[in-house]
């Protein structure tokens, strides 16, 4: 496989919470190649947005990078100066945010903002920028794009806004597109439409797409590879097909078992994973998932599990994965 366009190595990020630190991300390692769509799944609070924010370099002011680095086309983005980091944003790495209701400025028209977002483009006139933005709005399936340019965000529906924010992210033809829960705030029909749109975009998009979600269905429909996260750690990674049909980490199996789309028959009780996320202020000594895992034994509770390579493309962070 070619050199990864984005490579995250051993990234640990915490949030300063006064007397202690919330370890939101622990030793996360992942990579994305051009032309591929990777998924990041995990339940709420497992650090997905923290990872996304780190990729685009917009961490909250109280975030602390404890260790690790992010390489974009081989350069460590944390080592760049502020200006270079700023140039990278929007131009090379773009983001679609979680909540389409609040992503746009309420007092500026959509057109105004889409034009402003192209400020890295040099030697391009305002009217050309307007044309580019209008074309992209048409591309993401907005019915009357030139009228939409004159609209204020609150005049558009949630689905329209999410389309518009996808268009915004594509404006600068970035090499990495991060979509943080692009469909979570939308209803089911809208969700289906947005997924359809993202699939369509895949075909002529050259860069890497990273889709963050807690919905396995979204991953199955969109992604080539998936990283499963639990309590700030990546616990399993592999091709979508492998992960779905032969999950090796008990958390992945449990997650799949809980996906309603997976049930063959009507069930009176929805299955859930018993227990709750471990305390992120003092993460457990051994495996993070041990407290909720049906297979866990003494070893799991006391010793940090190793990365077990299952195949060329799949590995899991589990003592039991090799068995």
């Amino acid at each position, binding site marked *: 496989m070619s050199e990864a366009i984005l490579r995250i190595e051993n990234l640990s990020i915490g949030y300063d919470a006064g007397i202690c630190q919330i370890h939101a991300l622990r030793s996360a390692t992942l990579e994305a190649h051009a032309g591929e769509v990777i998924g990041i799944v995990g339940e709420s609070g497992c650090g997905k947005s923290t990872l996304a924010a780190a990729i685009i370099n917009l961490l909250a002011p109280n975030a602390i990078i404890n260790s690790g680095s992010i390489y974009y086309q081989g350069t460590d983005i944390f080592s760049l100066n502020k200006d270079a980091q700023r140039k990278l*944003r929007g131009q090379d790495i773009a*983001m679609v945010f979680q909540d389409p209701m609040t992503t746009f400025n309420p*007092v500026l028209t959509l057109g105004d903002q889409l034009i402003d*977002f192209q*400020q890295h483009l040099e030697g391009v006139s305002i009217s050309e920028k307007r044309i580019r933005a209008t074309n992209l709005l048409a591309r993401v399936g907005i019915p009357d794009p030139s009228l939409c340019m004159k609209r204020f965000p609150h005049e558009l529906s949630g689905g329209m806004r999410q389309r518009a924010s996808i268009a915004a992210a594509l404006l600068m033809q970035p090499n990495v597109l991060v979509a943080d829960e692009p469909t979570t705030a939308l209803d089911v029909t809208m969700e289906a439409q947005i997924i359809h749109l993202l699939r369509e975009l895949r075909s002529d998009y050259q860069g890497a797409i990273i889709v963050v979600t807690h919905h396995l269905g979204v991953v199955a429909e969109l992604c080539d590879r998936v990283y499963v996260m639990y309590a700030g750690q990546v616990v399993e990674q592999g091709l979508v097909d492998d992960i779905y049909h032969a999950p090796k980490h008990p958390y992945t199996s449990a997650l799949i078992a809980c996906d309603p789309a997976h049930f063959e028959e009507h069930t009176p009780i929805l299955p859930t994973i018993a227990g709750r996320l471990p305390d992120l202020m003092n993460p457990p000594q051994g495996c993070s998932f041990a407290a909720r895992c049906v297979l866990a034994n003494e070893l799991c509770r006391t010793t940090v599990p190793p990365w077990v390579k299952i195949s060329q493309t799949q590995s899991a962070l589990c003592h039991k994965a090799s068995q």
Partner: protein
Amino acid sequence: MLTYAIKRSLLALLILFVVMLAMYAMVFLVPGDPASIALGPRATPELKQQLIERMGLDQPILSQVYHFFYNAVTGDLGYDVWSKRPVLAEILEAFPYTFLLGVVALAWALILGVFLGCAAVIYRGTPMDRILGILSVSMISVPSFVVAIYALLIFAVWLRWLPAIGAGEIGDPWSQFKAIIMPAFAVGISWVGYLARMVRASMLEVMGANHIRTARAFGLSERRVVFKHALRVAIIPTISIVAVGFGSILSSAVFVETVFSRPGIGTLITSAVLKRNYPVVMGTVLVMTAFYLIVVTLADLLIARLDPRVRDVLRS
């Protein structure tokens, strides 16, 4: 929007009516009846009675208010007890001076205040932010008359750069400009601090919003994020504050026009109150209340223009 405008106007009329009622009540409550003060202690009862009748003070309060309004609608605010000139003419003569003072004072305060507020946001958490904070709070807390008197002392008496009194020669913009510097400075200074604090607070709130994160995600510079994306949202509450300050310029005009012996509404009303020149007091208060209401209403309409969400709420 139209029903909103009509509603606002009706409310404004009601407020005007209540204000005038209160004014009339005050005339009756302050000790010393206007006629005796006007004529002095040695006036004969007949003379007094004549004056009371001429001023309409013998009629019941409501009827006085009614007549006052009835006349005011036709543009007649009565006559100055002393000079016998129409009150409206006196007010129209004095008003431009006070209006100009208000415009200049709030314009420089607004520009500098917004700028300092934004600077504090850009340098938030640094010593610069703290210095600006101390500066703003001192500007708010130093009384304006102290500023006025020191300015007078330094720039007019010691340095002799600026004229100590008056409003400049009529028809000579340069001398008028020099004459307005100190009064506008004295009126505006606390507004600078106040606006800087306001802008900083509402700006910091806006800076935490998701759409600011979006703007940053597109690599916009901090300056552009602050001045274009955040300020456009944060300036909206500031507009109504400035409008209130401008509309109630009368209260600052009273002191600053007295200190600098500047003609204007403040001087007019001060001398009218001292001489119990009630028609002038009434007329001035009516005009300035109306002015206040107009300015505040215009500010609301401006806010509706700047904030599409407000506009839509009003439309429906």
